[in-house]
């Protein structure tokens, strides 16, 4: 399952790029699982996702909760809380 992941703001800066395509294993079921799986890569990923409670997500154009399943998602965005314009 190939998913496009978009990173924004401080998450993007810590990871060092704004998007990539990943293929998580079958035991990565939810947004929270995905964040944990990415954090386990270490380096910038570990920094970006050091505090998973402060990470927000969207699947496509809709906001998603940590428990939201990612099955079927083609694009997932991960980012810090929005700050308004």
């Amino acid at each position: 399952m190939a998913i496009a992941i978009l990173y924004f703001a401080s998450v993007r800066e810590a990871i060092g790029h704004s998007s990539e395509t990943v293929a998580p294993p079958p035991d990565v079921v939810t947004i929270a699982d995905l964040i944990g799986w990415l954090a386990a890569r270490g380096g910038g990923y570990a920094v970006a996702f050091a505090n998973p409670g402060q990470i927000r997500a969207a699947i496509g154009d809709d906001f998603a909760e940590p428990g939201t399943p990612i099955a079927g998602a083609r694009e997932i965005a991960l980012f810090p809380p929005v700050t308004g314009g």
Partner: protein
Amino acid sequence: MSATLSVGVQAADFDVGAELAKLEPLGGGGVASFTGVVRGGNGLTALELEHHPGITETMIRRIAEQAAGRWPLLGVTAIHRHGRLAPGDRIVLVAAASPHRSAALEATAFLIDWLKTRAPFWKKEYFADGTSRWVEARAADDEAAKRWIEQG
């Protein structure tokens, strides 16, 4: 009442007079607006706004529709810039046309409160001493936006 919606998230500046002139002929009798300008101070040299191309505009459109459902509006305009802006640059324009001046003004207040506090943007501040920092969500602004939700 059916409202004409005009929503945009763009890097380019906007022409306030031209945008308001589109709302004036809708027959409402009144057009309220709020223009936000990047504020300087504390050595701020630039503000960088990041947005999610899919989500940000969709969410702004949804809130504009919400305003059009809550107040008797004939037109709503909401334009927000992204990218790197300097103090003094225009950053946001909200406007509403209505036969009732209080409706136009209240809808404008509602939309600008939401845009300033809840809209999906991330802001980074750059300072004259070379430092920079990501702005964090502000609780006070959250309260201003919440007022409207509680009234809803």
